[in-house]
């Protein structure tokens, strides 16, 4: 049986899709059969970040409405052969996603995959509720700022009351905290919440901290999940997070401000990658 993992946050624009792409790719690179589903119907972002937007024929709505078979809609990644993407529809409206339809899809995928990642839309409305409903585990993506932490707290409450596991009174959804866009310099200046503060408020195990990093934007512009950019700090941080997800005990990195630039760099304005 596959594990269903929702990537969720409540607040928008915190890095859910970036994380879904990176973690799905990372798991697949580790040999796990992984499929990532875009639940953000109407926006459709995941396929861009995964670099498969030109290969989309059918989407999840087509499958639910019986216009295509699941296998026709699944896009196999060309870089990692254990990875597949189920894109969202750009044209349909959100109500096209039904719980029964999603249930059937997840059941069918369960037979073939180890991990099913669900990239949730923002908010705590219907779409986000549907994305988390079938979850066995949740990666809660949080930026180190008050509103994001508050929304993550909210979504954690929802997970423990409105998920299928909660409704059926099964073991609770396993929670992982992923703090993203962490900028140690801004934390030091008091412009962002400290990691300890975020952890204290949310009180769930920390999967990783992804630093604020230009490489994320570059990666998404070229349709390469940032975890494939092994030189970048964000890519390395995601790789560590995947390792921890699979049970490895790895120290957290990139929590401190990068070393002060040397005199030479300061004089000539060098910029770190």
């Amino acid at each position, binding site marked *: 049986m596959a594990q269903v993992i929702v990537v969720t946050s409540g607040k928008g624009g915190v890095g859910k899709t970036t994380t879904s792409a990176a973690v799905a790719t990372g798991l697949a690179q580790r040999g796990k059969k992984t499929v990532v589903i875009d639940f953000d119907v109407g926006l459709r972002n995941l396929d861009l970040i995964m670099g498969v937007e030109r290969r989309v024929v059918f989407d999840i709505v087509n499958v639910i409405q019986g216009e295509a078979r699941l296998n026709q809609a699944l896009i196999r990644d060309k870089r990692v052969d254990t990875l597949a993407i189920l894109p969202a529809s750009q044209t349909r409206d959100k109500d096209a996603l039904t719980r029964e339809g999603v249930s059937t899809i997840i059941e069918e995928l369960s037979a073939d995959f180890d991990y099913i990642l669900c990239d949730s839309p923002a908010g*705590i409305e219907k779409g986000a509720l549907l994305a988390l409903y079938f979850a066995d585990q949740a990666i809660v993506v949080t930026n180190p700022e008050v509103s994001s932490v*508050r*929304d993550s*707290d*909210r979504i*954690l*409450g*929802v997970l*423990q*009351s409105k998920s299928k596991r909660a409704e059926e009174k099964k073991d609770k959804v396993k929670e992982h905290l992923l703090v993203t866009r962490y900028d140690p310099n801004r934390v030091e200046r008091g412009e962002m919440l400290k990691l300890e503060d975020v952890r*204290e*408020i*949310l*009180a769930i195990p920390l999967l990783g901290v992804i630093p604020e990093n230009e490489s994320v934007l570059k990666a998404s512009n070229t349709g390469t999940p940032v975890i494939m950019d092994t030189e970048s700090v964000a890519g390395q941080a995601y790789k560590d997070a995947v390792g921890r997800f699979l049970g490895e005990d790895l120290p957290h990195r990139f929590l401190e401000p990068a070393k002060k630039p040397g005199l030479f760099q300061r004089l000539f304005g060098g910029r770190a990658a």
Partner: protein
Amino acid sequence: MSSQTLPEAFRLRAGNFNLLVLRLLDPRPEAVLPALGDQFRRAPGFLRFAPIVIGLADLEAAPEEVDFRGLVEGLHKLEIVPIGTSGGSQAMKQAAQHAGLPPLRAVGAEAEPAPPPEAIPVPPAAAATEAAPRPDFSGSGRAAMLVAEPVRSGQRIYAQGADLIVTATVNAGAEIIADGNIHVYGALRGRAVAGAADDATARIFALNFDPELVAIAGFYAVREGLGDAPIGKPTQVRLEGEEMRFAPLG
């Protein structure tokens, strides 16, 4: 009761209740509702769907000037449930009754010329505590509800007829309510409402006192009103008369 072959379907008993009275001073719903809505939005959630009595004694208006139906409708929208009236002239009561608000008789008070509810001065130290009969919450024997998980933003926990013990944090945007005392062995960052069944002896204890709002028996203080409370410290909150007292614990 004598033994019967048919099972009992109901029993009728007299019961006394403590109810909030909304004493109307202005006959126009459009004057009353917005101000009330404002106050209720800031007030603790336990007032939601609370039954309320409309007090007519202080209303200086002709019965036909009062839009009772509009008032009832507006109150329902605010999640307040008016169940009847108290006081007021015969004509006023009748007008209210036409809008589905029957006259209620206050316990111990005369049915007719109803004295204004606040005619009896209440000594500050005993306010609200010595009210009509209510469930016995005194001292030991009260049940407690235990919550060992963080109470998160958007969650609401109500310990009915019991104390509430939370061994984790109560986060901003969360609301915990107890008819008895509240103990938080973590940070209290949300709202805490103790003595919700009008028990003014109820107290709130928190290891890390950092709340958005605290209330006891309907008296409440929002964050801005906490004054010199020991924020961030172990704290006890109790009611002294109508004053909320914040004292360091231990």
